[in-house]
């Protein structure tokens, strides 16, 4: 009985250590975002701002085109996630229900694509998009995001399709419905919650993406939020820490909100799905 108690105590101590490790950088970010310049310059920074201010947020919007960048991110992430689920859902259905050559190859591609070093495909993509005059264009970026988010979208959706009872489709087949018809009127509606979760996940990954955007977008008017945030660092001085923290904090909020909504749904489907490659 006593050993049980000490075990519990040790477990709580370990959990507390984890909580501190996980939380402290984020708390520090928030604290920095609300500190006035005077406190940021002090040699002994404090956890809680003595004189909390919104000045950093105002200054952040002055220094960089944050609103425009957020708009660009929104357009890219929204379009890419919608297109990705619209084209991935039928394919995921085939992959989950049919063991033919196409679905096997697709499954293999999903696995292998996790291992791509992106530099190997970004160079050719850069050349291709350049020839199509799609460098420094959101359209080019969206095309890349669609394909980039397909592997994990397929992965998640295949899981959701498997959870739909096959009897329903058999019944439709008996009634003489075609494959496409069965898919559209029987399977797709049942998949709706899974499709929404997948789209939200694709949205977050595109919203957060940095590498492709860094390579493909050249001018500040076209750049997405992560690229603009990175520009803050170039001009970093002690005085700029506040606006930097404020902008970084703001950029996180959409992802955190969406993640909080879909968190329960993704844990199952996400086991090996791509996250941040």
């Amino acid at each position, binding site marked *: 009985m006593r050993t049980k108690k000490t*075990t519990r105590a040790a477990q*709580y101590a370990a*959990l*507390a250590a984890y909580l501190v*490790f*996980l*939380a402290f*950088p984020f708390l*520090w*970010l928030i604290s920095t975002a609300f500190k006035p310049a005077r406190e940021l310059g002090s040699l002994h*920074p404090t956890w809680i701002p003595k004189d909390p201010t919104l000045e950093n947020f105002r200054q952040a919007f002055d220094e960089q085109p944050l609103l425009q960048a957020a708009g660009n991110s929104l357009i890219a992430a929204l379009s890419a996630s919608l297109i990705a689920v619209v084209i*991935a859902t*039928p*394919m995921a*259905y*085939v992959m989950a229900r049919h063991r033919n050559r*196409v*679905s096997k190859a*697709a499954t293999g*591609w999903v696995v292998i*694509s996790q*291992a*791509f*070093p*992106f*530099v*190997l495909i970004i160079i*050719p993509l850069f050349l291709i998009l350049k020839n199509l005059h799609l460098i420094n264009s959101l359209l080019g970026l969206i*095309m*890349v995001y669609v*394909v980039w988010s*397909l592997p994990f979208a397929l992965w998640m959706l295949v899981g959701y399709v498997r959870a739909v*009872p*096959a009897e329903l489709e*058999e019944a439709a087949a008996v009634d003489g419905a*075609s*494959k*496409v018809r069965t898919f559209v009127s029987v399977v797709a509606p049942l998949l709706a919650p899974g499709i929404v979760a997948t789209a939200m996940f694709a949205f977050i990954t595109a919203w*957060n993406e*940095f*590498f492709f955007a860094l*390579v493909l977008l050249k001018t500040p008017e076209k750049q997405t939020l*992560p690229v603009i*945030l*990175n520009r*803050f*660092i170039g001009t970093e001085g*002690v005085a700029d*820490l506040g606006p*930097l923290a404020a902008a*970084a904090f703001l*950029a*996180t909020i959409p992802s*955190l909100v*969406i993640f909080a909504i879909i968190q329960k749904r993704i844990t199952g489907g*996400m*086991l*090996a799905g791509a*996250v*941040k490659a």
Partner: protein
Amino acid sequence: MTLATATKRSAKKRAPGPGRTDHGAWFLVLPALIPILILSVGPLLYGIALAFTDSQSGRTEPTQWVGVLNFQDLLHDTLFWDSFRIGLLWAFGVTVPQFFLALGLALLLNQPLRMRWLARALAIIPWAMPEVVVGIMWRLVYHPDAGVLNETLSNFGLGEGKDWLTGTATALFAVIVVGVWAGMPQTTVALLAGLQNTPRELHEAAAMDGAGAWRRFRTVTWPAIKPIALAITALNFIWNFNSFALVYVLTQGGPGGRTRLPMLFAYEEAFRYGQFGYAAAMGCVMVAVISVILAFYLVGRLKGGDEA
């Protein structure tokens, strides 16, 4: 469910509908297949081909095949091998602690503890954050004057004004800590899902037999989560080896190349110096290494399958 699928499959085999079913399947697959072929498989092959050319940006004369010249140059490029070594150090340095920390957290979260929900919620934050923000956040933590780390350390009389990210001795270690922090949640969630699929009765039976905690872990828990643990570790290693954004934001590869991961090196080579062919060859070498790792993982998994 399994039964239904089985019946369905055998039914399909018995009635090989001529064409119609397959046409339907093609119709469903094509919308995704075409973009995949054009924007993923195509560029990948194109990228491999580029590795055998002298392709450069902004050059007027046409690109030529140069055979294995790029690879020969790579062989003698000490900077590349430095970055390669750093990439492996980083990938090991992140993946191994990440796994053990995540396993510990997953085991804790699987216990009926009170603050569990909070830990779960917090574990999500690094996962949902843009890598650029994670990088910025840790720059603030590591900041020599305004950072919380030095302030905390100096309270214990240590590390006054230390610049973690620009010190040659500390930079790699500092970015590895960030890598562990950023990737721990996914690993935790994966392992937790594995733990929750472990039958409780097995644990209870083992406890009845008087097995201690370590024995129960070894004989019941570990076999149940081993496949997931192997898969997530192999994937983590590959993702870490290929990572870019986090370290780019934290150090840009500095100081003096101490944190220049292969991806950062290849990025600079391609998009700062315009050496497309050479950078593509680096990508090919990275693919080769990753394939070896994947092969190890697959062999490990097959062996695991034999034991089970």
